[in-house]
């Protein structure tokens, strides 16, 4: 680890912390510090990536010096706004949430989390970029930009036709570029195209995801003891660990952004904390900047959130309007031959990939096997299914729990439909994509288990209900 890299991490996390402070205010409980720390890493890294996009001409290590003033200015500005809003109001500790004492032996669960983190960090730092899409999609652009500045990546016809020698192409030319810019930032901070230094961001994000989720579970009423147990369960999920150790894919970032967006939204639903709604919006807005699937999850989350916010009598009208809008957009796109339709068709039909179509039944079995049979998730999905059956009445009684179940159910249905009823089935059968996309929903699935198993809130003590 070089001093530059440490400075790069610190500045990015400070920016993320400033964003948290502006949106959600000063943390007032112990668990909120944990949440803030988790969100600060995700928001800070991605906000830095956005700032890197403003300095397209600069290449190499000098990019660090070019971006740093922007980063520090943004941090100072946001921190200033946060402190201005906080002026005259010293951060006071909020009333502690009702809780039972935490058995000391439970703290031992932090040991496996710490050991896992150390192992994953060492793995990520030691191993040069390894897994396929990491170098084929995200690092190829970042490596090119590190040497040449942020040259444009275009499609094949444009690459042939444009005389500009700076124009590049690649198989993944149309992938969202934010993650490549995050990689570029850490390379610049390290002073060289140092793949280990870049990869360290993934284990840090893994830890941030666990911290952020644990803090939000606590705020949503899960007891500290169960938060600790569920934090261990989240850290133990094998495929999540793999994405931290074999750094380079965007799926862990999608999982973190989606989880943080949804958990903040649930907090807003439960306690109407405006800051949490703003955090949900910011985290959700980052999704399409990371990966195409992020745009789909954003639409689904936004649609459900709007539907949930509508008064009950307007919901059917809202649904009809949404369906009409989607239909109109499709028809208009068809008439105007907009390129996104071609892209979706190509992706779903597999024109951009090799392989042959597979029988739907085999694809469905492979999809289910990825959830229940392989070593990817331990017992997460059977546990979720069992808890949903056991605590089914809570889905109707507790609004946020029910909405989370609907959200996850919609995500799973979308993935199942994609991998079973479209030619993308070959990716399910070959086990190359289905479980990776399930990773986006795994932290939320565990969150749903945590909410289903939380203690039932005691009935409010109103004057009428009080004993005389």
């Amino acid at each position: 680890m070089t001093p530059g890299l440490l400075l790069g991490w610190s500045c990015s996390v400070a920016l993320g912390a400033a964003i948290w402070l502006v949106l959600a205010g000063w943390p007032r409980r112990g668990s909120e510090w944990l949440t803030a720390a988790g969100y600060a890493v995700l928001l800070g890294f991605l906000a830095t990536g956005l700032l890197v996009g403003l300095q397209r001409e600069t290449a190499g290590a000098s990019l660090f010096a070019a971006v740093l003033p922007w980063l520090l200015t943004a941090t100072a500005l946001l921190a200033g706004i946060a402190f201005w809003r906080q002026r005259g109001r010293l951060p006071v500790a909020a009333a502690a949430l009702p809780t039972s004492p935490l058995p000391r032996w439970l703290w031992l669960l932090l040991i496996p989390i710490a050991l896992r983190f150390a192992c994953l960090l060492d793995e990520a730092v030691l191993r040069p970029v390894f897994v396929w899409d990491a170098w084929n999609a995200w690092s190829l652009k970042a490596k090119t930009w590190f040497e040449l500045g942020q040259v444009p990546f275009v499609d094949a016809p444009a690459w042939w036709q444009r005389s500009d020698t700076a124009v590049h192409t690649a198989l993944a030319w149309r992938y969202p570029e934010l993650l490549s810019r995050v990689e570029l930032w850490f390379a610049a901070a390290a002073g060289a195209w140092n793949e280990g230094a870049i990869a360290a961001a993934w284990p840090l994000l893994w830890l941030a995801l666990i911290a952020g989720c644990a803090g939000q579970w606590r705020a949503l009423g899960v007891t500290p003891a169960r938060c600790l147990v569920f934090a261990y369960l989240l850290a133990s999920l094998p495929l999540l660990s793999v994405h931290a150790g074999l750094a380079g894919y965007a799926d862990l970032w999608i999982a973190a952004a989606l989880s943080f967006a949804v958990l903040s939204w649930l907090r807003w639903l439960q306690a109407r904390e405006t800051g949490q709604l703003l955090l949900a919006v910011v985290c959700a807005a980052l999704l399409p900047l990371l990966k195409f699937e992020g745009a789909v999850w954003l639409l689904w989350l936004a649609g459900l959130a709007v539907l949930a916010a509508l008064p009950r009598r307007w919901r059917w009208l809202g649904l009809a309007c949404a369906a009409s809008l989607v239909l109109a957009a499709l028809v208009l796109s068809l008439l105007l031959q907009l390129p996104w339709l071609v892209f979706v068709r190509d992706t779903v039909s597999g024109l951009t990939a090799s392989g042959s179509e597979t029988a739907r039944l085999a694809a469905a079995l492979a999809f289910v096997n990825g959830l229940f049979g392989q070593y990817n998730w331990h017992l997460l999905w059977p546990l979720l299914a069992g808890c949903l059956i056991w605590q089914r009445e809570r889905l109707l009684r507790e609004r946020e729990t029910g909405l989370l179940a609907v959200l996850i159910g919609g995500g799973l249905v979308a993935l199942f439909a994609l991998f079973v009823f479209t030619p993308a089935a070959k990716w399910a059968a070959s086990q190359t994509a289905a479980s990776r996309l399930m990773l986006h929903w795994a932290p939320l699935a565990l969150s749903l288990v945590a909410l289903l198993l939380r203690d039932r809130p005691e009935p409010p003590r109103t004057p009428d209900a009080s004993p005389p």
Partner: protein
Amino acid sequence: MPRALLVVIVAVWFVLIAFFVELSPFQSPWPQQRYRIEGAEFAAFSGAQADGSALAVETADDNDGALLVRSVDIADAAQWPVLRYRFAELAPTLELALVYRRADSPGDVRTIALTRPRGGVGSIDLSREAEWHGAISEIGFAVYPLAQSVPAARAFRPFRLESAEFWSPSWSGRLAAVATEWSGRRAWSLMSISALGPDSGAVRTRSPVLLLAVGLVLTLVLLLQFAPGRPRQIVRIVGVAVLIAWGLLDLRWSLNLADRHAATRLAYAGLDWQERQRQLPDADLLDTAQRVRTALREAGVDPDQVRLLVDADSDFVRARLIYHLAPARTGPLNLVGWDGTTFLSEPVFVAMLVQEPLHYDAEQGLLQIDNERSLPARVLLDAPPLHLYRLGHEAAP
């Protein structure tokens, strides 16, 4: 909880385990016959010597591994379906395979990948392998660097082959084979980022995750059916059982992750980052990319400015070569095609890493793209399988 219910639950778990392990009711609990071969009875092509009853392999052969073989006279392979193999100090950077010849086709060497066992002894149930039949004339073990995840030059470490033993069919043989598969040491592969299980070669056994899930569901059903009046106790029992099952799976995964990480440490620990980025499993492709860049510079062009078409025999090699060539202005041939070469006045370069190159007519200076099309070209580098051409009219002689 009634004692009878406890007995039923234990019985259900035994039946489930037998089903998931695929025990045959027609086999004996213990092997009736054993055929043991000491490690020292195997011969290596180089770098090995007998060490007591074991064979110590101190140095790697030309392929960065070792091949240990011995003649056998097994009349009917079906009578010996279980192979137990005992290695000592086998590095996590090495893979292991059984090699054998059948008497009916002595010219063919057949291989079966073996799982590296967690303890000293591993087992495999060969009755599930389609090619394991007939008379066997020779067996051996191939030890070689992990194919995708470690640099071959840094993989080998000395090890010892202690013994190999064939068993006749039995429950204990099948149980030992399943235990090896469920607990074996695994290594990273490109597939690991997508799914764990299929990333370690052929899946030979039913899933222990599914076994635990089904067992827990059946336990819950039995408890609800026969002890319905005690919901709190049932919740507590099932909760503890789930945590234990989860803990067992996590213990397995933690050991598995430690094995994978051990291979990484063995390959890369102690090297600085520049050296780590040179010591790659595909270091030959990195060298190839350097040669292409050097050849382009020698031809008087900047590799980051000119259009460089890249092709190879596989998608992986093509994509990987492009990554190593970055920041060159590459165009994967499967994406950009040849069409643009016909209307451009500026030169275009082509790097091909292929076993069967395009036909090049040196006299006319034409590169034959397909039956209908040839392009004026000049060879810049001809070092099979690497071929580098400069396209364009001014390139032709």
